[in-house]
């Protein structure tokens, strides 16, 4: 009984909402740590979208032409179509496992902001897919005849564009998380919604490759990211709650 009274004492301390409740910041850090650790224990899910990105970009020289001058002209389209498809591939896993094993249920019942927890998960997802894609894009660009001077521009556009992709993709992933086979449906839901990212991203990349000013489309891309950060987490939360109901 000594043990039981120890838990009871803890409870009364927790009941008064004392210092035992961790701050939002430390919870977000905990969530990030958790998702990164999980991802590295299941490395295949981490590697697959990257490998997919490499494969898609190598298809074009094989299918179109190995001529670097011609490849340079289609490079923006190739990089962005490949980035879009790779991040879509990674989305399927975003909530699937957590929905299946009851983790999301515990999130929803934790007394903490579900929106905050899901946003932390989405940030982790971007760190694990968007950021690596942004780092890969200049390498793929080099293989497509893109001049070195354009590399920082390509890195920045893909990094900012994938923020929006992760957030809008998270809405699609949350809507389909309870469905058994959702791959094609997830693409059908997400792709029409992210067309603006493709348009502005490819345009900024194109301008960077031509060493022209790409600030305009890059800022539009950033504006989309800001809008997505503001609104998408609300939709993700609603979708998760609906699937837990």
């Amino acid at each position, binding site marked *: 009984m000594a043990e039981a009274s120890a838990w009871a004492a803890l*409870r009364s301390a927790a009941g008064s*909402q004392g210092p035992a409740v961790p701050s939002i910041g430390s919870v977000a850090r905990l969530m990030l740590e958790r998702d990164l650790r999980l991802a590295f224990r299941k490395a295949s899910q981490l590697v697959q979208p990257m490998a997919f990105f490499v494969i898609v970009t190598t298809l074009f020289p094989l299918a179109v032409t190995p001529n670097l001058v011609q490849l340079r002209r289609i490079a923006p389209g190739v990089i962005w179509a490949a980035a879009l498809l790779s991040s879509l591939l990674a989305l399927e896993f975003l909530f699937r496992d957590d929905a299946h094993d009851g983790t999301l*249920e515990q999130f929803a*019942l934790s*007394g903490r902001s579900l929106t905050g927890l899901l946003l932390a998960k989405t940030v982790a997802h971007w760190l694990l897919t968007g950021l690596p894609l942004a780092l890969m894009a200049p390498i793929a660009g080099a293989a497509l005849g893109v001049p070195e001077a354009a590399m920082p521009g390509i890195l920045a556009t893909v990094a900012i564009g994938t923020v929006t992709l992760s957030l809008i993709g998270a809405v699609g992933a949350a809507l389909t998380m309870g469905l058994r086979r959702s791959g094609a449906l997830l693409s059908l839901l997400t792709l029409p919604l992210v067309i603006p990212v493709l348009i502005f991203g490819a345009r900024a990349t194109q301008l960077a490759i031509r060493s022209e000013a790409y600030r305009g489309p890059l800022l539009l891309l950033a504006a989309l990211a800001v809008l997505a950060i503001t609104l998408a987490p609300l939709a993700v939360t609603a979708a998760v709650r609906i699937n837990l109901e």
Partner: protein
Amino acid sequence: MSEATLEGKHLHLWRGERHVLRGVNFTVAAGQCLQLTGPNGSGKTSLLRTICGLSYPEAGSVHWRGEDIRQDLPAFHAQMTYLGHEPPLKMELTARENLKYWIGVRRRSSDREMAQALEQVGGDRWADRPVHTLSAGQKRRVALAGLLLSAVSLWLLDEPTTNLDVDGQRQVGTLIAEHLASGGLAVVAVHHALQMSPQGLHTLELGNG
């Protein structure tokens, strides 16, 4: 804060085309455990999920400390823990890591507390093994350790004795009894009656409506 009581008032719930709960009423006071019995599909899990606010009842309401839980769900959630059919564990993480991330969202717990909780469920020997190497019964014990660590007044448990041996089943009974003795409350969906002293234990039979 008023007295810890949980009340269900005229709860009606539909699942698809089935009217599973037809005007369910109950009251659980501090130191009491409500055991939900009934055949499969009688709505035990649905009722638990309605109590914790995941599902919306068609009619009726759940009250905690005299107030509708919908008034302030986060505050209610901070005082309860729900354990579903499956332990909410990540297979790739160890038992200890699982507890750290699961409970860490709710409250800050010390290593000593975690060690104590694990010891109490008999898990101190395998606490650092990845969960996928543990048996179903051991996973269940990790979930029970989490329940203790969350240090809340209200326990909502769905078949907590599944996959446990006779010894483990008795232990669940003891944990609940200790929880009640220290002023806690519990609602437990069960297949087989809980193995615990009948003091403070009430039964709600579902599925005859």
